[in-house]
């Protein structure tokens, strides 16, 4: 039977369908890998409650492991502890920026009302003169920003803690 380390390595080949540069390991969506008897049990957690990518990720895991010759796979979805952007790997942050998506800044906007939006440097030109266009972007996990220096409109992977 394969080792959990081996399975964990395989999981680096499962990508987020909506941010295809990130693997589920980079994202911190992969929570646990277990080998119980002849069954591989993978535990994952959603980034947002309504994240439509979860079903696809589940299917991709099963399919990939099948290709690797593992037929008995269980994928378990857990909500607790709730996902946070702190689980995004250092490597994942670099990949995001290279892909043109600003990685999460360390602080979540805690204040509810009219707090100054977080400064999110432009992923293209690194200017800090940028502005929030909308808290809600192309997917649940992103906000929409625009750079005032190079005018690039870009997604910001918003901080969730």
């Amino acid at each position, binding site marked *: 039977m394969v080792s959990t380390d081996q399975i964990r390595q395989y999981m680096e080949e499962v990508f987020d369908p909506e941010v295809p540069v990130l693997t589920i390991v980079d994202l911190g969506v992969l929570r646990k890998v277990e080998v119980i008897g002849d069954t591989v049990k993978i535990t994952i957690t959603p980034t*947002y*409650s309504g994240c439509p990518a979860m079903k696809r990720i589940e299917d991709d895991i099963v399919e990939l492991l099948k290709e690797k010759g593992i037929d008995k796979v269980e994928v378990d979805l857990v*909500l607790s502890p*709730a996902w946070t952007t702190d689980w995004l790997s250092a490597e994942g942050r670099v990949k995001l920026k290279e892909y043109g998506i600003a990685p999460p800044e360390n602080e979540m906007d805690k204040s509810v*009302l009219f707090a100054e939006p977080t400064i999110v440097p432009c992923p293209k030109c690194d200017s800090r003169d940028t502005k929030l266009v909308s808290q*809600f*972007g192309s997917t*649940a996990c992103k906000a929409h920003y625009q750079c005032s220096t190079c005018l690039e409109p870009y997604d910001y992977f918003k901080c969730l803690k």
Partner: protein
Amino acid sequence: MNSLFEYLIRLGDDSLILGHRLSEWCGHGPVLEEDIAMTNISLDLIGQTTSIFEYAGKVEGKGRSEDDIAFLRYQKDYKNLLLVERPNGDFGVTMMRQFLFDAFRKPLFERLVNASDAQLSAIAAKSLKETIYHLRHSSEWIIRLGDGTEESHQRIQDALDELWKYTAEMFVEDEVDESLLADGILPSMKGLKEEWMATVNSVLEQATLTIPTNNWEQHGGRNGKHSEHLGFILTELQYMQRAYPGMEW
């Protein structure tokens, strides 16, 4: 009656019906960013519904899935607040409805995180993070519209006047809540209404809006007594399952 199941149905129906209402804005938002924002929030709410109903099905123990619960009940079995089934109206009505609801859900989830029931607590912790973004978004719009032009001020004040009577229902505690509180499943809801009121007052003040003096309260949703609007929502929501019973894709 299983109180936990009933409680979950109420919680889930609030998310489901408001999520559905917001989804009606898809392709009709006043600006593209707002269209995306409303559908994002809708997605969060429907995602929360999935988790809540999935758990409700387990608690009930009759083998019902989250889809069975969402699609295959009659109107009187829906227990959402009357507030969330109110029609979208203009953008002001939609945002006011959203704000009054978000300001309630945030302190509610903050309390439910401490529920002794582990799954309910997990759902609340997950949903709370999303709700903080929703509340911020709706609060900003209330202030922008209230403290905006004469026209926007009047419209958002009209929205507040129209919706205010539906807010009291959020804080009613009946035998379902009492039995869960007595069994220690639900944490104390002490201070919930006060916290909601503080958020509402603070935002409305900045928005230069006035709370209506008429204190008539309209109740009913929690007991399955709905306005005519819910029927129309369900007609659309349940169409496929009614036309093709048991269909899957």
